[in-house]
């Protein structure tokens, strides 16, 4: 079993002032490393509108590379505007994942819109930055990954990686909507697509992991790193409905693979669980692994999927 030392809550959105669009939530942390700081992208929300509905923006906080618990600066604006009328990303840009590609930074994100028979749907978009990730712009108004014959529901939570001179996109694909107490809840699993250019994607079309909790188990945030000769994936999983309480909410799981396609699920090895009290006592979710200067870190969310921010843990030892 891996052993993670929790370093505590690192960023709390409620402590940021003067940004009306950053009232609460700091979701789905994703990092970009610079010489002396680490930029952590996250998704946040202004207060709800008069109908109680939220939109999500993505922005970043810069942490000191020498001490990731120290905040250097918080972005002044969202790094990408919401999509236009009728667009797939009109109501939210969340989650967001970045990767360097030569002189530019490429981003892959979930774009949210609102529907009638379901609260929302999500498709995966892309954007590019020419200023080291301070601002991003779209290269087209539509998504790069949307519903297909084998992926007919929500497509979200992209994590971009490059292994073996290919591009890999790990993401979440809905398999149905389950209605519970009058509310439609998306049921989703982990998928992967590959690409030679980061724009045109071939979907593998199969779930990366079986469900363990129940048929309606939901899996998200598949974060993959290569270390010690194999691929390691940390992710989160929860029950499909009635998960907004402490026993059915997100936990962090672990799987490994030799080929990115066949994964051995070993949640018992993940080595990180909810705390007995505090900001991550009810649920832990959305792991993001950062290997930096000889250490392996995990950024993750606590209670209410990051409503009060994200925290950090450091691995004792290495990923093998």
């Amino acid at each position, binding site marked *: 079993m891996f052993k993670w030392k929790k370093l505590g809550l690192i960023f709390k959105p409620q402590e940021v002032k003067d940004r009306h669009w950053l009232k609460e939530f700091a979701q789905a942390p994703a990092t970009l490393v610079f010489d002396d700081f680490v930029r952590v992208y996250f998704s946040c929300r202004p207060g709800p509108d008069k109908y109680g509905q939220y939109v999500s923006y993505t922005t970043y906080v810069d942490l000191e590379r020498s001490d990731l618990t120290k905040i250097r600066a918080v972005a002044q604006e969202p790094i990408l505007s919401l999509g236009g*009328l*009728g667009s797939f990303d*009109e109501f939210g840009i969340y989650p967001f994942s970045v990767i360097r590609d030569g002189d530019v930074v490429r981003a892959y994100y979930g774009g949210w819109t609102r529907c*009638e028979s379901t609260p929302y749907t999500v498709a995966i978009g892309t954007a590019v930055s020419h200023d080291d990730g301070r601002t991003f712009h779209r*290269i087209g108004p539509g998504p790069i990954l949307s*519903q*297909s014959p*084998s992926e007919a529901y929500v497509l979200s939570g992209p994590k971009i990686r490059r292994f073996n001179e290919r591009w890999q996109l790990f993401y979440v694909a809905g398999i149905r909507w389950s209605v519970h107490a009058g509310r439609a809840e998306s049921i989703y699993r982990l998928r992967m697509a590959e690409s030679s250019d980061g724009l045109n994607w071939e979907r593998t079309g199969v779930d990366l992991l079986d469900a363990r909790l129940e048929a309606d188990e939901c899996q998200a945030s598949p974060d993959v790193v290569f270390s010690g000769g194999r691929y390691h994936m940390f992710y989160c999983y929860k029950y499909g409905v009635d998960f907004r309480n402490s026993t059915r909410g997100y936990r962090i799981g672990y799987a490994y693979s030799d080929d990115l396609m066949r994964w051995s699920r070993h949640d018992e090895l993940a080595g990180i669980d909810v705390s007995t009290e505090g900001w991550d006592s009810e649920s832990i979710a959305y792991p993001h692994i950062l290997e930096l200067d000889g250490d392996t870190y995990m950024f993750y969310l606590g209670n209410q999927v990051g409503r009060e921010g994200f925290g950090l843990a450091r691995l004792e030892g290495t990923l093998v």
Partner: protein
Amino acid sequence: MEFQRVGKIFDPRDYPLLTELREYAQSPQAVVFDDRIRIFFTTRDRDGTGMFKSHPAYVDMTLDLQHVMRVSDKPLMKLGERGCFDEHGIFPISPVRVGKQIWAYTTGWTRRKAVATDSGIGLAVSDDGGETFIKYGQGPVLGPSLHEPFLVSDGFTLQHEGRFHMWYIYGKRWIRSDEDSPPDRVYKIAHAMSDDGRRWTPTGQTVITDWLNIDECQALPAVVRHDGSWLMVFCYRHATDFRINPARGYRLGCATSHDLVTWVRSDLTLTGKDELPGWDSEMQCYPHLVQVGERLYLLYNGNEFGRFGFGLAQLL
């Protein structure tokens, strides 16, 4: 190009369609059999909220398109599950023979909040001549993509020299004529190609140049081989105030091509039998071409987007 009107040939009020409403027979599209012409179309029902849902159906007609033989008496396919692209309706349905099967390219609709709707193009396959169809997956074979962001609809396919070609439409933008109006859509005809009819790649090329203005809406392309070249028919209208204002509603257009890539647009005129007020006096839309022996027929809808059926014209 001139087609001579024959008149309305199918009125949904006259037949026992499965939908209770028994109105709308939209976007007629034909498959020719030895002894009949099967014309697929979509008809509407209302759901519990009073909103429309469209469903595919067919009518079999004699080879001269003069007489109705029978109408479909069971559903061709079900609408999609909650959250699927075709949950709230299928309109239109475009059949094409592929080997011994009939493939149908469907347009599925889902309702949205900020705008009325979005759509995608699905595929369903029939092994029984079009009586019933099995969907190829629960999602669309062609949906929104980087440069074609929404409202992907109206797929029409043909096979030529070992490749599948599809003409379809996609939404360019949603606009508001004024602040209080619901958003109106602007859409254009596009072209995609495929090796297997399932995995499609948009060409990204403009197919039909705008004649009205940049907000011209172009819909329902259909293509046949005719007179040594390719003939496309489609319909077009203004983006706003098009539902009840005859001056801004759908009219028919056509274009010709020698290579399926470059198209020269021209007028399509319906001649003769122009009764006023006739069934197609205010609007002409959703055209389809069917070659029967030497004859080239045009099927199309008239007023109110085909609420009271479809009609026929013939190339002279």
